[in-house]
């Protein structure tokens, strides 16, 4: 009996891990996922779309490596921000993830004395890589973001 239970437990664990692993490797879809997040109620600011070339300059991402992207930001009132990039390989995605993390650090530093209330949003910022894609979310409410990530 003990052996059967252990076997079942191991099987369930393996299946769970496989499911998680599969999900993590499914890249983000810039347009579709951005729409989902924008409509989720995570943001209080009316975010504006940022053109691809400007977005790449903003984050310090080499535009020639970008396959697709969807980037939205506040026009200055808040720290809220949403960015999804896809690339042709893992290395470029890894480089971009570092750039997005740098962005969060820079914003924390800049807003610490300028808009201290916004720093809380930055504390919970989500930066994540999935396959050849990366995601940045700086939101007012992270509950819908977690729901989205759990998918």
């Amino acid at each position, binding site marked *: 009996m003990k052996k059967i239970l252990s076997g079942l437990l191991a099987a369930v664990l393996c299946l769970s891990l496989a499911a998680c692993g599969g999900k993590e490797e499914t890249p983000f879809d810039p347009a579709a996922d951005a729409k989902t997040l924008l409509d989720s109620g995570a943001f209080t600011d009316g975010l504006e779309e940022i053109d691809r070339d400007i977005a790449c300059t903003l984050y*310090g991402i080499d535009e020639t490596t970008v396959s697709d992207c969807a980037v939205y930001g506040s*026009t*200055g*009132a808040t720290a809220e921000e949403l960015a999804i990039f896809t690339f042709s390989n893992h290395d470029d995605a890894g480089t971009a993830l570092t750039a997005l993390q740098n962005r969060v650090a*820079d914003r924390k530093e800049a807003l610490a004395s*300028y808009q201290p209330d916004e720093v809380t949003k930055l504390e919970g910022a989500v930066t994540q890589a999935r396959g050849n894609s990366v995601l940045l979310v700086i939101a007012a409410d992270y509950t819908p973001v977690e729901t989205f990530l759990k998918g």
Partner: protein
Amino acid sequence: MSQRVEQKPTRSRPPRWLLVVLAACVALLLLFVLTRGGGDAGQAAESGPEPTVSALPAPTPTPEPTPTPAPTPTPAPEPDYTQPVPLGEKVEMDWFADAVFIGDSRTDGFKLYSGISGGDFLDYTGITTFDITKGKKVIRDGNGKISVLDALGRKQYGKVYISLGVNELGYFSAERFASTYGQIIDAVRELQPDAAVYIQSIIPVNTAKCKANGIPYYVTNEGITAYNAALAQLAAEKKVYFLNVSEALVDETGEVPREDSADGVHFQKSGYIKWLDYLTTHTGVQN
């Protein structure tokens, strides 16, 4: 024996003094002739060749064609720096290809939402003139950070646009603000000797939205007006362009309209577009 001595016939020589006098006369005569000749040549040069009278007139030398003088470029009159840059012909986006923008979060919004293409941006949320003169390191450079002026010195630009001042309201007097701003202009001139320098007026706020969003009480349009007056004077003193961008965004009450304002201080995309449109029609280039 008489010896015959052949004697040369004796000639009476003229006295030596007479020879000296004669020589002097000849010398004087020569001198006179030479002097006259030179004088005539000079006169001829001034009054042109005298007509020669002869049976066979010497062939008149073909006058060399007078080279057409190259048109002297008319130096462009110095712009009137005592006045804001006037409305001019709209330029294309490539005007900004050699431009750099220095500013705070408003310039950041301008970069992201105005639709500008080209140009470099050295902006940082919350930065002040004092931060810049003190060399605060805010511009990301790889894994580190450098100051705005250090970043500016890395490349030569044709145009430098500066927009600062809203973060200094309430902290310093207009005079001290202008004095520090002047130090930045001097530093920019030193780093960018060939660039045209444009200082932009501080765009007013929307007072109602400022109150609703908890913007500090000292951020007022009265304060902005005083700072802008100091900036206009500074532009005249430093001989740099003064861009009264404010006029592109304010309504008849002197406020940024609610629909163009995000939180009172920053703008909606529509506001940033108006800002860019103003820059493309106010370049200081005279037609």
